[in-house]
């Protein structure tokens, strides 16, 4: 059935089968690879580096805020540090984090394809990301930028003396990298599905990435041109945001948030896809309301394009415009709540087990709940007048982006780590880390809701003394959070050297990706799979099939199937 000759016998155990990691070790084969799995790993390494850079900046911020006075850094330096934190974390960690690593790695595996539709475009997107990242690092080395990650005009175009142009080119390149990823995903999901893999048999992870790709493709070009206009204004004086020329600085905000609000859904939607996979697997249940969860991703992507004005309630935009934006922002809560309710219903009467990915997923649900509900406060115009630009906003978006997206990212990395590397990590340490991150996160950001409500503005190094208690609490939490984040860096890397070999399906999960080897062979499946079953057909009463020992004891659970042999996958009940 496959035109591709199988170049090794999958059942021979005389010598290790070549997988995508070990078939070649040269630098050239890694840097010029078209393999989506290798590119995913390249992305994983790069986003981790930027996460560390952004995290160090975050710790500088927290240490400075220990005292009411600006005693560690000058005010100017502080501005540059929080800007670096925001720019690096958003453009170089959060936006590519799940799509470009897990999405890149898993989408072809989940839909039964050999690769993404355009492997070389995929590689190009990584190089463009690296070029953008280099610009960002250079901008930091040359002294950074003090505009915040939002680059508001006219400050950024006329007054700021930081490396604005260099930083904007960094964001511009990162944007193009994500456009290419988005195009690749859309075409892949439309055209590369295996026989039998219908749209409603797709894992929800793939649905979420489809919605994400739509945002990347529709939104990113707008911010790209907006940033170009800003560069043209700053360097060539071709200005349309310059009030001096009769230009409109608020137009910049409209165009910026037209992308940058949907961009927060680029960060959270793939995370929601990850959570759907993990919750279903560790509840041993089909996800509750599959089609509702699938369409709620598209609804979030669609509605996300019509709410940008809620960032601008205080800019003097029309009151009626503000009301429309406010109502539309409330409406985003509906598909978000559909997801959370459906996950909760999936847990209900499920056979829940608390492996480390599940701990991250449950943490995600709690934190996203708080992050989402406080979003309703902020989309209420009257309340927002009070809370605009306070630490309440900071806490809100960290609950969604860090508590949501990063929890999901870590949950996904833990869930698919055996598939990606072929190694099991230390489960106990992973559980400790998950709990530490959850506690540390809440300790860091919950006090910020309070201090923000009391009136602490964001982006200030100096604050009244009565706020110090909350800031100390927050910094203590951040320390715990930082240690929690460092732990996976240690035990995941250690697992590469001394981790037990992972079976093909350590969690007894039913997704197509678990039918590939761990790690997968260079072209994923030995034969093109033919899909005859629905997504998430977990057998709640069946054997869990969880990994509980080294590979030798579990060999029977490892399945290698092809369309012709017709064997049923593990964890899948016989008969439909």
């Amino acid at each position, binding site marked *: 059935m496959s035109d591709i000759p199988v170049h090794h016998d999958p059942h021979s155990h005389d010598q290790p089968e070549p997988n995508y990691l070990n078939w070649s070790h040269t630098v050239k084969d890694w840097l010029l690879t078209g393999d989506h799995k290798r590119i995913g790993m390249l992305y994983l390494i790069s986003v981790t580096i930027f996460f560390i850079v952004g995290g160090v900046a975050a710790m500088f911020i927290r240490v400075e805020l220990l005292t009411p006075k600006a005693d560690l850094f000058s005010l100017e330096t502080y501005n540059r540090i929080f800007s670096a934190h925001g720019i690096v974390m958003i453009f170089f960690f959060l936006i590519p984090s799940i799509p470009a690593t897990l999405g890149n790695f898993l989408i072809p595996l989940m839909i039964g*394809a050999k690769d993404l539709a*355009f492997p070389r475009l995929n590689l190009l997107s990584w190089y463009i990301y690296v070029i953008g990242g280099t610009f960002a690092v250079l901008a930091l080395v040359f002294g950074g930028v003090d505009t915040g990650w939002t680059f508001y005009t006219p400050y950024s175009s006329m007054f700021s003396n930081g490396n604005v142009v260099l930083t904007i080119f960094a964001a511009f390149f990162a944007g193009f990298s994500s456009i290419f990823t988005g195009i690749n995903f859309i*075409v892949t999901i439309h*055209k590369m599905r295996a026989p039998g893999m219908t749209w409603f048999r797709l894992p929800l992870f793939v649905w979420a990435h489809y919605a994400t790709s739509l945002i990347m493709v*529709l939104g990113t*070009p707008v911010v790209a041109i907006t940033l170009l206009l800003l560069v043209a204004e700053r360097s060539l004086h071709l200005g349309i945001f310059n009030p*001096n020329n*009769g230009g409109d600085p608020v*137009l910049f905000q409209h165009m910026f948030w037209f992308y940058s609000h949907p961009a927060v859904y680029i960060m959270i939607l793939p995370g929601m896809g990850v959570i759907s996979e993990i919750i279903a697997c560790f509840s041993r249940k089909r996800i509750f309301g599959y089609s509702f969860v699938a369409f709620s991703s598209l609804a979030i992507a669609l509605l996300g394009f019509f709410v940008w004005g809620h960032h601008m309630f205080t800019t003097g935009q029309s009151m009626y415009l503000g009301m429309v934006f406010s109502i539309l922002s409330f409406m985003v809560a509906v598909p978000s709540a559909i997801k959370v309710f459906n996950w909760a219903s999936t847990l209900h009467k499920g056979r829940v087990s608390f492996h480390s990915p599940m701990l991250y997923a449950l943490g995600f649900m709690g934190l996203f709940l708080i992050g989402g509900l406080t979003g309703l406060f902020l989309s209420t115009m009257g309340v927002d007048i009070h809370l605009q630009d306070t630490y309440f906003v900071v806490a809100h978006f960290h609950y969604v982006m860090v508590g949501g997206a990063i929890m999901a990212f870590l949950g996904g990395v833990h869930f698919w780590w055996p598939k990606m590397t072929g190694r099991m990590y230390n489960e106990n340490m992973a559980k400790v880390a998950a709990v530490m991150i959850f506690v540390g996160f809440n300790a860091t950001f919950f006090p910020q809701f309070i201090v923000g409500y009391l009136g602490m503005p964001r982006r200030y190094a100096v604050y009244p003394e009565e706020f110090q208690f909350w800031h100390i609490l927050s910094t203590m939490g951040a320390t715990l959070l930082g240690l929690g984040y460092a732990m996976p860096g240690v035990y995941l890397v250690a697992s590469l050297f001394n981790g037990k070999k992972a079976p093909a399906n350590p969690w007894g999960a039913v997704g197509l990706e678990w039918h590939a080897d761990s790690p997968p062979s260079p072209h994923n499946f030995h034969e*093109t799979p033919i899909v005859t079953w629905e997504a998430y057909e977990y057998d709640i009463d069946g054997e869990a099939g969880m990994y509980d020992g080294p590979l030798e004891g579990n060999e029977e659970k490892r399945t290698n199937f092809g369309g012709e042999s017709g064997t049923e996958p593990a964890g899948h009940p016989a008969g439909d």
Partner: protein
Amino acid sequence: MSVETLHGEPVQSDDPHQAFAVHYKERKQQDESYIVGMWTFLVTEIMFFGALFLAYIVFRNIWPGELSEISREHLNVKLGFINTLILLTSSLTMAMAVQSAQRKIEGRVYFFMFATIALALCFMGVKFVEYSKKYNENHVPGPLFHYVAEGAETKATVAGVEVVKTEGSTEVAHEAEHGRKFSLEPVKGSATSSAQHAEIFFSLYFIMTGLHGIHVILGVLVMLIIIVMMWFKSPLVADFMPIEMTGLYWHFVDIVWIFLYPALYLAHPDLQKFLHG
């Protein structure tokens, strides 16, 4: 087949027109993926230009009469019309090139590709004439920008030295502090005000037509690369798909101009009177 040629590399086939990259199942899947990918890319391009049109609409809405006045006085409708004709014709030659490629008539492919490139260069030549005229008249926004409104008594420079200030306003203090002028409200009716409109208009003009011009140049480069690859019998251009996709891109570039020309060149003040009563 070795693992090294797995991803993205074309499979060698007896019939070069039937070759496809190994990660696809069949030739049809590859062709359809290319087409869907190209259309998705064009959607991103629409959003890219769409943001500029948005900015244009915003400022035309603020100063409907003033901007069209400047357009009528300083943009050459005839040159724009000639350019529209040139670009439309180039779309025709491009379509002929695609059709010749589909019919595998190699000589005609070369002929029509070169014809398209020649027309594109003519287009850029006309644009060069227009740009240089505006450069000589100091209508390029920036420190040298200089614009005299019709009927204005005094010359007013905007980004240079002279500034119209509102006495006692906070902006004045701000300006003094930074040594730069900064006025939030356009002062309507004054010479400076129309110079403001002019600078906005010319900023939009140069950014929109400039980005369009960059797209034209990129199209020319892509066509040249395809011609060279065809000349050296590269298997990557053995069939019509690369030319088909270049054609899609080229028609998009053409359509952008179809919107740019009326928006920028045909903005006639009488039309504004007609629309706004």
